[in-house]
């Protein structure tokens, strides 16, 4: 049944040109859902075990700067851009090309919020 949601996220992925990966993990980086562009094989670093926990800590620390809770961190690299959203207990990660439309990625946020509520239950319920 989770094919439905996978299909939905795949659709989102293809809406933004230059977006390679959408990944939903828990705060320690354990993946719940991951969709990626089939042609792009070099973006496995999104699965790097330290990427997500590092974001979680960075977001934690950034929340203490006195500007309120940290919601999103955008990281620009020479070949990629990584947009990570703090949706605790979930972490939403987008990996795209460096010239990818960041504004469009950010605009996806409110589209996925409803689905995240459902996925959240898998992490929190005991």
């Amino acid at each position, binding site marked *: 049944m989770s094919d439905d949601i996978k299909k939905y996220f795949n659709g989102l992925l293809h809406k933004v040109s230059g977006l390679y990966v959408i990944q939903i993990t828990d705060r*320690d980086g354990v993946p719940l*859902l991951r969709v990626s562009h089939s042609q792009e094989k070099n973006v496995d670093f999104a699965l790097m075990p330290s990427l997500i926990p590092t974001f979680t800590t960075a977001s934690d620390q950034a929340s203490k700067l006195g500007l*309120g809770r940290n919601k999103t961190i955008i990281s620009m690299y020479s070949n990629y851009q990584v947009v990570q959203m703090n949706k605790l207990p979930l972490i939403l990660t987008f990996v795209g090309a460096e010239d990818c439309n960041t504004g469009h990625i950010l605009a996806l946020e409110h589209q996925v919020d409803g689905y995240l509520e459902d996925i959240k239950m898998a992490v929190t319920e005991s």
Partner: protein
Amino acid sequence: MDYVRSILDCLASLCSCWQCTDDLGTQGIEPSERTHLLADSVNQSPALRRSNSADLSNDYSQSLPKKDDQNALSRLVQNTAINMINVGAMDSHTLEHQEYTDRIKLYSQRLQQQWNNVQHPSVVMKGLLKDVPNHQSCVSKPIYSDDTAQMKMFMEKSHAGVSGIQIDHREAVVVPFHIP
């Protein structure tokens, strides 16, 4: 740019009063999923913590009447630790491979279960002619020359405006934070 200004305003008000309202005040004080109990700093996954939380709160409530002072003190230390920006704590733990795979299994299992109960927003085919009730009127929409002229002027002036953006800082670039 309004956003940047609001951030600056926020910073300015922060210097005069640390007890800001909004969500600033809530930081670190209310116990949340992230709250560490200093006595029990062993990392526990949220999934596991849930099952242990009953034990933890029991321990906590038992120690409360006995060592009231110590408790208050430790809570003070804890709040300070929470509010402090601690880059040293950045070398985060990594999950054991076993727990990692276990959790993947657990999550996929739960998702599967849940998916049978969740009501799916059915996939509705969308189309311009279906979505727009009176498409005849759309086909006959005119293109206003004013619009294109206005846009042309907007873009020309914007190019000049964007190239004119530069930072003119008047205050110190590095600001010490007053952490209690």
